[in-house]
């Protein structure tokens, strides 16, 4: 039996769902191939969405009409805006999610998406004809034909679970790994690597002494992820905090040789920002205690996720050390923690559209590209799905750059720098951090999404209304003004310089809010919460915004200079061997990207430019000034002796 699809997405995780939905939103006839529909939208690790940097990604996915923000709003049971005490540019929305509600909401979103068909089955391999990917074969013998495949295999590529000395080939606990695909990718000449991640044991909440523990409440009212969500209606719960003790550390230290991380059994590289508890205790021996957050996995689910004690120690050791934590003396472990190793593709094999450069028709997203995290995966899924659908329609890749958003930063980092550990988003990765805020993701990206056909009519209408309200409020605030003397009289500490300041300018001062200004101008009282947030952030960063805009223009100028793909860096004189190798591997698409390659210098760039000129031998322009200068030097004939 043969089906003809435009795009087949392999994998029903966070990357796969966004990829399938994005492709379908563009109108491509899309299939989502997954083992079982019931596992679509599964949160394999911690039951939380968002965070610093990650929350930005969720808002950006939402601004492009992706699924994650809305699904997390439906499933969120504890919302917190991280860094609330800091400026809006570095705030990140985060929520604990009910895993069952999350799956249900994601499955509904997938099921109701038009042009999207769910196919249950296990992918066996890619159909490659004349160097193009043209379909997928399934383990049960079926084969599906298509024009493009988006591969989102997560940790399933040659997945190998480690629990103490035990090794279990698996993609997730209880689910078989995908073996053939990895070999096929390697055979196609793609550079591969091996990474590692881990997850803690799951605990039975009924056996925890909650009364002994510190409670961490969520925000009230909770702030949703999605620009479309008006209010969170799901009931809210708390997290609790416990910590490791001297006894915990002793047990782990005594048994560290039984951890596959220390016995040499694991070769993959794990993330430094998410170390296992044995790593923490080994590397930071001087620390007497580590915090552990007990996160509920659902409203009607007693499973608890102990965030901070991911481990691959044997089950008996896990059992012993977890019971040494306050409140957990009588805890029942539902299932042990584990480390998992998996294959990934060197993301420098990819274009900025997440297409595999040397295997047309194949797109990759998520952990297969060396990233970690649901949000990172989902953002890539959206980009890969979008571009797979565009490729099928014969359109150029749609690329988001480093000034568009965190998703652009992430893709550019991946394809330019590659990965040495699972890649996670941080706000420190974004050079235009003050401009790329979670609160203005729609302003930055929704217009672009509309142009690409990614954004549906409901969001378009909501976006237009919101922008109209913000514009109106900006006009209002620009038309209200006070002299410095009047401002002082109104209780605002401004320099007595005789200048007149608009309400917007006054808003940029520390500790001046719209509420405060509304005492002076009562007509500001009517502004809604999200409009206030937008204006306060704009005013706060106004001083830096202009400078950053200029930097972005310059950066984009460089990114418009294309480098032909056939440029042979090994033939360029003057480049160091190290740079030749790096440039050959990355194959930067533009001069701007070449500048971001590690170790690049302006002198080396001149060599690259020379190489480009040799490939495109049209003499464009003369250097009148240079020759004039030279002859003037000769004619001047001025010497001192």
């Amino acid at each position, binding site marked *: 039996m043969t089906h003809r699809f435009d795009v087949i997405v392999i994998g029903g995780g966070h990357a796969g769902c966004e990829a399938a939905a994005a492709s379908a939103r563009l109108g491509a006839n899309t299939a989502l191939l997954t083992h079982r529909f019931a596992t679509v939208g599964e949160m394999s690790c911690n039951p939380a969405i968002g965070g610093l940097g990650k929350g930005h990604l969720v808002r950006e996915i939402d601004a492009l009409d992706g699924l994650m923000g809305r699904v997390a709003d439906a499933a969120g049971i504890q919302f917190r805006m991280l860094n609330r005490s800091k400026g809006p540019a570095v705030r990140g929305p985060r929520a604990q999610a009910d895993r069952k509600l999350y799956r249900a909401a994601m499955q509904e979103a997938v099921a109701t998406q038009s042009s999207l068909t769910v196919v249950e089955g296990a992918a066996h391999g890619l159909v490659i004809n004349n160097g193009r990917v043209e379909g997928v074969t399934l383990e049960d013998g079926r084969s599906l034909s298509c024009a493009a495949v988006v591969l989102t295999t997560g940790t399933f590529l040659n997945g190998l679970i480690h629990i103490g000395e035990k090794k279990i080939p698996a993609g997730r606990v209880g689910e078989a790994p995908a073996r053939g695909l990895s070999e096929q990718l390697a055979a196609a000449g793609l550079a591969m690597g091996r990474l590692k991640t881990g997850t803690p044991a799951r605990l039975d909440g009924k056996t925890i002494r909650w009364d002994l523990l510190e409670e961490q409440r969520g925000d009230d009212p909770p702030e949703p992820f999605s620009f479309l969500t008006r209010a969170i209606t799901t009931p809210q719960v708390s997290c609790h905090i416990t910590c490791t003790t001297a006894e915990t550390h002793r047990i782990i230290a005594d048994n560290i040789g039984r951890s596959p991380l220390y016995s040499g059994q694991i070769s993959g590289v794990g993330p430094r920002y998410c170390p296992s508890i044995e790593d923490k205790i080994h590397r930071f021996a001087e620390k007497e205690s580590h915090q552990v957050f007990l996160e509920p996995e659902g409203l009607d689910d007693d499973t608890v996720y102990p965030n901070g004690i991911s481990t691959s120690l044997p089950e008996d050791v896990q059992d012993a050390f977890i019971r040494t934590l306050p409140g957990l003396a009588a805890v029942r472990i539902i299932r042990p923690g584990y480390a998992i190793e998996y294959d990934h593709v060197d993301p420098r094999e990819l274009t900025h559209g997440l297409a595999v450069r040397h295997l047309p028709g194949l797109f990759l997203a998520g952990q297969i590209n060396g990233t970690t995290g649901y949000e990172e995966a989902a953002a890539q899924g959206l980009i890969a799905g979008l571009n797979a659908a565009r490729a099928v329609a014969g359109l150029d890749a749609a690329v988001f750059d480093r000034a568009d958003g965190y998703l652009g930063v992430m893709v550019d980092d991946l394809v330019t720098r590659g990965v040495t550990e699972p890649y996670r988003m941080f706000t420190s990765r974004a050079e235009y951090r003050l401009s790329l805020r979670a609160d203005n993701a729609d302003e930055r990206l929704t217009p672009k999404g509309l142009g690409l056909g990614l954004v549906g009519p409901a969001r378009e209408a909501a976006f237009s209304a919101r922008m109209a309200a913000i514009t109106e409020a900006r006009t209002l605030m620009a038309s209200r003004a006070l002299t410095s003397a009047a401002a002082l009289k109104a209780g605002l500490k401004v320099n007595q310089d005789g200048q007149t300041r608009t309400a917007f300018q006054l808003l940029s001062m520390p500790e001046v809010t719209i509420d405060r200004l509304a005492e002076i101008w009562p007509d500001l009282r009517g502004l809604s919460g999200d409009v206030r947030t937008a204006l306060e952030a704009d005013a706060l960063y106004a001083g830096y915004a202009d400078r950053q805009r200029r930097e972005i223009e310059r950066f984009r100028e460089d990114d418009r200079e294309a480098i032909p793909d056939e440029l042979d860096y090994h033939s360029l004189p003057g480049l160091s061997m190290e740079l030749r190798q790096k440039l050959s591997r990355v194959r930067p698409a533009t001069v701007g990207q070449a500048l971001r390659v590690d170790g690049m210098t302006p002198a080396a760039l001149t060599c690259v430019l020379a190489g480009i000129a040799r490939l495109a031998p049209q003499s464009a322009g003369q250097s009148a*000034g240079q020759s004039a200068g030279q002859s003037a030097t000769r004619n001047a004939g001025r010497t001192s002796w």
Partner: protein
Amino acid sequence: MNQDSTIFALSSGSGRAGVAVVRVSGAEAGKVFALFGSTCPAPRKASLRRLFQPDGSVLDEVLALWLPGPGTATGEDMAELHLHGSPAIVSAVLAQLSQAEGFALAERGAFSYRAYRNRKLDLLQVEGLADVLEAETDNQRRLAMRQFLGDASHTYETWRADLVRALALMEAAIDFSEEDDVAVKATAEAQAVVRRLIAAFTDALSKAGRAAQVRRGLRVVLAGPPNAGKSSLLNWLVGRDTAIVSPVAGTTRDVVESSLVIAGTPILISDTAGLHQGTTDVIEQEGMRRTLRAVGEADILVWVEAVDGVSTEEPERKPDFRVLNKTDLAGAGSRPTGAEKVWPVSVRSGEGLDDFRAALEESIRVRNDLGEDAVVVRERHRRAVELALGHLHHARGEDGGGDGRGLEFIAEDMRKAAAALAGVTGRVDVEDLLGEIFSAFCIGK
């Protein structure tokens, strides 16, 4: 690369031609003439212009070119100043330009990059440039830097480590605020490191200023026993009677200085009181003390003895030249012997003088060449450190940046400081910061 600013650089190579060309490219290029208190020449017309220093003194008289874009080498407005090829003048011009708002010393390759961007480089030229830059591989660059900088590289590495530390602490406080290991004290430590960097940069800049003054000209010192003919040699070199000459030993009691230009380099040449042992004359003792100080400060020390004169103990500082004067007094006295090269001359008859002057000139040229490269390196670094210092002051709220600003603003200023110093300390990458964060803090709840 900063593509907003107007860039400038010494575009000519060594100073041997006697002319040094400083090129300027960018939107502000036309302001160059006014910056030196001069007027803008007619477009594309080589014109004579006098350049002034901020204090009103004449810096140089130059051939000036005003080349409005787009018909220029880079496609932008350009100006060229054809200076007298001395490191002192070049250094002063570059220093004055680097002080100007919107101007930045060009990094290597910056002119050709702009030309490329504006489609001004044709195939041949681009290839030619690549050949020129062939030697510019990273290892060679690093090696060259090390040779230039010597001990400085150690200082730069310390700065880099401090910058990485301060930035990492700030970024940790932003990105890992949820971690119990990243306490509020992270930002306090960051502020302490920033204070340390501010002090280090301020100190380095004040020293750079003094170093530049020393480089403003070379000191040539004539020294030796009394009555060897040092003053006569000085007068011959300068070409006028600067020093009083007499056959009486000890005529020169003090250091007599005179300036002249050799190989395009301003030279301060000093005639000194003769050195000899056993004097009790207080004035003579003071004169000799001053001689020794001048010898200590000499860039080029010329040791002058006479065929018929007494020999005296040489100072510790090894002479660069040994001149044996009064060769016209045939057979008189014993000649100093040894392995060292000696220049026999007679100031009275003129014998050997031209050979000596040629050798002195060559020696100055060699120093000149070395000096010019050093000027470029140092000027760029000085400018970078100045910029970085400005950003750090802003981060500290010391220039009206104000208190109560969020962490993200301070981090932004510090990122800018690190970017400004990239040419000095190497690029500080987010991976460097993450490495520092993950080794300093136990991250991962």
